[in-house]
């Protein structure tokens, strides 16, 4: 079984995001970038499948600027076998990402694609679903557990009020949720070994995709400042304040 895992280079989760003064986006200049945390979970799951003897090869793909090789190297250091960089200096929207991934799937013929459920930069939560639709494959989103039942996948999802288990035919698209696993550290010996693993370089055009944006960003602004709260002296005051605010009857 071959597993494909797309990994995105995003602003590190610890960075305090700053909106550009011209309101065209957030400031990315010299900001610390890392692999999208959900993609780390996806890689971890794929590598565990390989360690369990279920997967034979794990391929990591990143679509983005040249520095996305760093992200691929991290995936390789975590245990992926090889990488594919699809280089683009443009912002690639989810639909275009899904189209490029479709091209890669057709070329690589994986049995399973594990994606992060969303990227923490734009929180779109669309790519996995769009890819499944474009390929006409089964999809299991927000996976918190992946098991195998013969040639089918049993996928557990966390939904409101409990757990839902799906039985999916292969090939399949899976998107990883937070509790699927705890990703390992890329150890120093594995960082060194990753240098010897191959990374192919491609362009969106190689897959016949034009990455021109279809969406227009009008304005990006800071979230509104939270109003300061007040301290209430007693339960009575609390109740009357809540009534005042129209929160209780």
């Amino acid at each position, binding site marked *: 079984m071959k597993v494909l895992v797309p990994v995105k280079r995003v602003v590190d989760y610890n*960075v305090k995001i700053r909106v550009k003064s011209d309101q065209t986006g957030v*400031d990315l*200049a*010299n900001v*610390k*970038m*890392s692999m999208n945390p959900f993609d780390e979970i996806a890689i971890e799951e794929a590598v565990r499948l390989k360690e369990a003897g279920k997967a034979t090869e794990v391929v990591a793909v990143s679509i983005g600027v040249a*520095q996305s*090789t*760093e992200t691929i*190297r*991290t995936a390789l*250091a975590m245990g992926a076998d090889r990488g594919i960089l699809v280089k683009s200096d443009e912002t690639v929207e989810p639909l275009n990402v899904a189209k490029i991934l479709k091209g890669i799937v057709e070329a690589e013929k994986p049995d399973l694609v594990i994606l992060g459920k969303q990227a923490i930069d734009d929180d779109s939560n669309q790519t996995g679903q769009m890819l499944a639709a474009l390929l006409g494959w089964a999809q299991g989103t927000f996976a918190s557990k992946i098991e195998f039942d013969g040639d089918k996948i049993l996928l557990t999802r966390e939904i409101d009020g409990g757990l839902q288990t799906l039985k999916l035919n292969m090939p399949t698209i899976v998107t990883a949720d937070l509790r699927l696993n705890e990703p390992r*550290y*890329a*150890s*120093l*010996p*594995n*960082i*060194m070994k*990753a*240098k010897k693993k191959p990374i192919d370089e491609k362009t969106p055009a190689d897959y016949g995709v034009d990455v021109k944006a279809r969406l227009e960003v009008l304005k990006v602004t800071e979230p509104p400042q939270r109003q300061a709260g007040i301290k209430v002296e007693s339960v009575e005051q609390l109740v009357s304040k809540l009534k005042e605010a129209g929160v209780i009857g």
Partner: protein
Amino acid sequence: MSAKFSNGQSPVDFDHRYMGPLYNDDHRAWRATLRKFVEAEMMPHVDEWEEAGEFPRELYKKAAEIGLLGLGYPEEYGGTPVDDPMYSIVTAEELARLGAGGVNASLMVHGIGLPPVLAIGSAALKARVAPQVLAGEKIHALGITEPSGGSDVANLKTRATRDGDGYIVNGSKIFITGGMRADYYTVAVRTGGPGPKGISLLLLERDMPGFTRTPLKKQGWWSSDTAALYFDDVRVPKENLIGEENNGFIGIMLNFNKERIGLAASAVAFARVCFEDALAWARDRETFGKRLADHQVIRHKFAEMARQIAATQAYLEQCVVRVKEGETPVADLSLLKVQATLTMEFCAREAMQIMGGAGYMRGCRVERIYREVRVNAIGGGSEEIMRDLAARQLGI
């Protein structure tokens, strides 16, 4: 991402300062791993460890798993050989972010204990000791300093006398990092006449009869197990002789230059932690109707800290380039260590002053670092000894 200046952010913090061409993708990948490791495995517990006076032994194993303990050691013993001092800078910086040098001192103590074994020890000794140490299963300390003196290594008094197929050791060692929990101890003993030519190194093992230890309480480095060691007719087999008899002094000296780069890198990184914490505080806190960071006196403190940190970092990186090119610039490495600990001292002082009472409270990184200034300025070659060495090297 290569060299770029910050974008209105702090010029000296860990992610936005000038990172010159010395830092490559591998260094960045290693930094990212350490950053995560420190934040997930160490930061949440460090206050508790400091108060308890120790950290769980399990941390050695975890550090081994990510390759931290094996950094720079041969592959045959389970290490990751990297012939590049930039890794020790990156490592020292990321570990310093913990703001608790005691954890690092004990966790990384094999960095002083093991190198003499690898440099001059027998193949059998290396093969027996190194793999366990680098796997985090055994702790390896270094015992040089004695109650009668530390700076004057050549005059140490602990005696080892020949006894058939081994040695009988008598004497004591003091201020030994990792001394309470270590399994192996590289110990300097006198086997010959006075002076450096009468010194040998022996590998002592925890359970040897006649070998005892007591804990020492300290100003800082609370989670480091510092000990006094006592040797009372301890029998040591001759297989445990590290290198040749009376040739131990060189084994001690060999590691000093490398150690000093690491010490300097961590001292300047601690200075940077002080800067960072004080800056976050001063931007947030209001006094007399404006941000603390808007008072000119405070702004100048930051500018001054930044100046010293940047100068020290530049000196550090310049020394590293020379070491990478095969030089051993002893005078500069000595002066670099002095420069770095003075920078740490200055920044700890100024940062605590800026933070006021809050900076004096336990659980604050600056408070801890303040208490760790002197051990950095005394251990691994004191400021006085470093200046003296430099003056001699410079032919003054």
